[in-house]
């Protein structure tokens, strides 16, 4: 039962990254891809009806993590206290920027919020990447299963590593590249004309950085976290996840250059899902490894809630998520197609 919930939480988080990832990525490239006010409005309009729903995956995923693995929730959220608070501030500023940008017509107001939106989106991609890096590297858990990390120390990986060291910074850069490509492909899918061309070009250029960083982090990660290698050796069928990721990565490139926008975007989704499921598979049964003593690591069994809660949780979780997926299909269908700024103005 713990394993079922491990998979469900992993899928929730992966869905969050795929969905909110494209609007974060669109934000990260916003200033480069869209030059005029109309173009910037088009970018915002492309994520307007969906970004809030995408962010709900973070809340729902967090809630699911909370009740299925309370010890993990408590340990990781308090241990990453400072960066998480900054993530919250960035989420606040970003949401406000999207919502308030078009309330006032001024040559200062819009560029100000465009800047806030773009910077906050890029920083969120970096923070989320660094968080993932910390989970893979491990944290200094004590006997009570808790820890507290400073933001950074000397950027080495030793015993006193901070949240930012060279490895987690590397993952953060890879995350930014991933979401930049993902967001640019979304913009290419949803917009037309000059904007679409520029988005496609940015996706193509950023792809090279992405491919390089993916190769680098894959090589490094296997050195840093021995559990990854052990997992794939013990259960070779798990190689399907990295293969999917690779297929997505290559596919995104090919489809983008062949102007198959939807295909390219879906390949990028596949790439992100493949990468995250690879990490989850590779770390299993750890949910938060210790970097000092492996015996202190949090695992699916010692961090999970008791059986009754997990069982009864499944009873409402499955119908609830089926409903949620239904709403998502409905929303994405009703706002499908290219953004048209002359279309009905929302209020």
């Amino acid at each position, binding site marked *: 039962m713990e394993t079922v919930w491990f998979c469900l939480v992993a899928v929730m988080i992966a869905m969050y990254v795929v969905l909110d990832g494209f609007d974060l990525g669109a934000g990260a490239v916003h200033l480069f891809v869209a030059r005029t006010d109309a173009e910037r409005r088009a970018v915002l309009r492309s994520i307007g009806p969906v970004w*809030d*729903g995408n*962010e709900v995956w973070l809340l*729902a995923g967090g809630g699911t993590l909370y009740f299925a693995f309370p010890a993990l929730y408590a340990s990781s*959220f308090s241990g990453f206290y400072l960066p998480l*608070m900054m993530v*919250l501030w960035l989420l606040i500023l970003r*949401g406000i920027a999207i919502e308030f940008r078009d309330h006032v017509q001024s040559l200062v107001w819009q560029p100000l919020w465009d800047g806030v939106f773009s910077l906050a989106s890029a920083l969120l991609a970096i923070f989320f990447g660094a968080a993932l890096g910390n989970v893979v590297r491990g944290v200094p858990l004590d006997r009570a299963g808790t820890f507290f990390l400073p933001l950074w120390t000397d950027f080495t990986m030793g015993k006193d590593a901070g949240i930012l060291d060279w490895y987690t910074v590397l993952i953060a850069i890879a995350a930014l590249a991933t979401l930049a490509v993902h967001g640019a492909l979304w913009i290419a899918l949803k917009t037309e004309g000059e904007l679409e061309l520029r988005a496609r070009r940015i996706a193509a250029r950023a792809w090279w950085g992405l491919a390089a960083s993916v190769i680098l982090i894959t090589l490094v990660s296997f050195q840093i976290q021995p559990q990854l290698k052990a997992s794939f050796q013990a259960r070779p069928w798990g190689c399907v996840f990295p293969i999917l990721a690779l297929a997505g990565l290559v596919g995104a490139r090919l489809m983008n250059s062949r102007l198959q926008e939807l295909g390219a975007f879906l390949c990028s989704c596949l790439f992100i899902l493949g990468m995250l499921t690879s990490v989850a598979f590779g770390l299993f049964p750890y949910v938060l490894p210790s970097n000092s003593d492996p015996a202190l690591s949090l695992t699916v069994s010692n961090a999970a809630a008791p059986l009754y809660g997990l069982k009864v949780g499944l009873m409402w979780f499955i119908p609830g998520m089926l*409903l949620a997926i239904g709403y998502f299909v409905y929303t994405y269908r009703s706002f499908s197609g290219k953004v048209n700024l002359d279309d009905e103005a929302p209020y």
Partner: protein
Amino acid sequence: MDALTVHRLHFAFTVTFHYLFPQLTMGLALLILILKTMAMRTGNEHYNRAARFWAKIFAVNFAMGVVTGIPLEFQFGTNWARFSKAAGGVIGQTLAMEGVFSFFLESSFLGAFLFGEKRLGPKAHWVSAFLVFAGSWLSGFFIVATDAWMQHPTGYRIGGHGEILLSSLWGLLLNPWLFWQYLHNMIGSVVTASFVMASVGAFYLLTRKHEESGRTFVRLGVIAGTVSTVLMAFPTGDGQVHNIVSNQPPTLAAMEGLFHTAQGAGLVIVGQPDIDNRRLDNPLTVPNALSFLTYQRWKAEVKGLDAFPPDRWPDNIPLLYYSYHIMVGLGTIFIAVMALASLNLWRGALYRSRPVLWLIMLMLPFPYIATTAGWITAEVGRQPWLVYGIMRTLEGSSPHISAGNALFTLIGFMGIYTILAILFLFLVYREIEQGPERPEGPLSPAI
């Protein structure tokens, strides 16, 4: 300041600021639904215009509610790690259910409601308004269920290592405490929305702008406000007091400023609790009334604080006492104001009666104060417990977060929320200034 105090202030500040927004949107969702229904039934475009105007106010408030709401779920883990570890298996259920059942619903159909009026047509648009209403009230249910469990834990057992285990999901969701608390809270949000709507309407009538809309807003606000302010006192407020009487007797004594057990206890209207001397200074009491309200017998015995060991007393009795009295006092004033306005409305004199319109307009901040005071009563009244009777507040905070770190982030939140508050007031004032009869422009918020 010690770390525990800062953690408590951290949550208190962020949750109080957050709840300024949902308390309007939940009630407003209902009033917007009423406006949409009136538009459907009468075919009068005027009601659709009114609904569209309030949808704009709703959207700004909703966005504020979303961005200030995310930190709350995070803070259970960041600042209250020991509590989360012990009780996450229980309250994580309701918090996750909120995400799965209400946030997905709300966020999906808010887009349809705000963006899709022409595309959807009147019927489907009404349905989207209904689903936004349902999602927001469902969200309120899961949050109040979480709080109700902390006030009066049900459906749990204590495990071998002192951890709190869920033993019955229905016990959690059908907590007897929850019924009155939920209704009291939700009707409170209708009170806020009614006063806000009536207040904006009164503003239009007083400034002689958008007068047709102003009359509709005042009428709907006063009618909904009259019904909801009365329901606030009875039966929901009364029911909530009985929750406390049966389950948190030291809290009742502290709220009422009753230091000594008494038969035929008096109801204190004003007075200052004097903790050092354990008495109420300068009291003005209605004899025997507390006994009657509590047990329906004039001479019934009501337990005072002296009946309980001091380590079970709420740790800030003056704050609890004053919050409770402010809430009840304002609630009484609300009933009086709404009764006066209804009387004028019924006689057909309300729209011309400038003093009454002034009164309605100036009431705007007070439902927010009353709601905040009510929640302070509930949460300070729960002390010294985090989960009533099973986990003390000082056992719940995160072990490794120093007072300095927590203070740093608290000050950070205060700074960001100050900016948000300024932006919010600026944007809402602009919407009100432009009014409902503005032609639809090409520009629009993105949500």
